[in-house]
């Protein structure tokens, strides 16, 4: 019996290459990325305070989606990818 795979599709990002480099958690810039749900900011504040105990937080920034009900735009994701070495996500609710 031959069936058609109902999950089949061609990846729109199939040609993109990912370059993975070592991350220095004590020095590299980090984005604290909020999904803009209630309490996400409080969660991120707590995380930033924890990080402040072990490293400088001058290059740790908050990033927000414009709305909890919409995905982040490609421009925002590109900005985070270029500017930061890691992104920590808050899924507050």
């Amino acid at each position, binding site marked *: *019996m*031959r*069936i*058609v*795979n*109902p*999950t*089949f*599709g*061609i*990846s*729109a*990002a199939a040609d993109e290459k990912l370059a993975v480099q070592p991350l220095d958690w004590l020095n590299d810039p980090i984005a604290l990325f909020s999904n*803009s749900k*209630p309490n996400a900011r409080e969660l991120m504040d707590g995380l930033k305070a924890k990080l402040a105990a072990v490293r400088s937080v001058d290059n740790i920034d908050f990033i927000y989606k414009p*709305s*909890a*009900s*919409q*995905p982040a735009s490609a421009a925002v994701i590109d900005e985070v990818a270029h500017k930061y070495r890691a992104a920590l996500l808050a899924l507050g*609710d």
Partner: protein
Amino acid sequence: MIESLDTEFIDMSDMSIEAFNNMAESAGWSDGMPLYVPTEEAVGRLVETVRGDNEPVGPVPPRQLMPTMQSLAANAVMAGCKPEYFPAVVAALRACLVPEYNLHGTLATTHPCTNMIMLSGPVRHETDVNCGPNCFGQGRRANAAIGRALQLIMLNVAGAQPAEMDRATQGSPGKYTFCFGENEEESPWEPYHVRKGFDATDSVVTTLAAEPPHNINDHGSNTGKGILKTIAGTMAQAGSNNVYLNGPMFVVFGPEHAQTVARDGFTVETVQEFLQEHSKVHVSRISAENLESWNGQDRHAVGEHYYPAGSPSDIQIAVAGGAGKHSAFIPAFGNTAASSMSINKT
């Protein structure tokens, strides 16, 4: 049993329906109800109905895959679609892919929204979709299978696996299927798709990221204004997404309500204006914590009220159903759009 999930076709040993369903459930392809087997032959019969449609579909978020007509048809076969349903399924998916629909957000949300489908024009008769009594309920294959096919596509192509990508807190029964036809023959107003700029002879599918229908019972009112007051009261919900996110919503009049409202001189436009004004929610009905949260999101009251419909045109008006004094309010996700798409056929 399965050689590869990365291939379009999968060679399998012959198996019973029961064995296939067990395999599909294990693979995550199932909505929990029995599936038809998407054999190459069965899929081919559906694909034949869109043979002249060469426009690529997708990418479909969140997985961002470009499905083939075969993989879309495989989901339609599994849902129980007859071949003549398939162009409506493809059009419904395309309607969900316009950016304003916000498909990624509507699939990943904790809100229980599903993809409502309304068929307008000749396709209603070609598919035998139920536009009349019990149109939101059981009993007609087109309603069951077209809506289910779109939901299986969301599961298998978009990747909206429950409790994984689909984060719905409770979900809704509408996530199995939600498809009906407009009762154009008993409507006192122009059909929905004609009001949206299509020809009456066009076959059109309209989708909305919606909650299931909320019933509006009004047996007592004998005037248009009385019925509209009851409808507006049902729309004025402090706990809906629309109350602070606005956006589109449907009011689906039962034919008897619609005819009374129209008899008393209401047009679609004056119905929308009346409902927008009278469905406002006073801030005293909103919790202090919610008011603080919404203000923090720049979602402010207008004067002392929140308006579920940001503007009268947000209220989509249609007529469906049979005899009886009931209508339906269909709230939506909020940050979305009612999307209408012409159905292409060979």
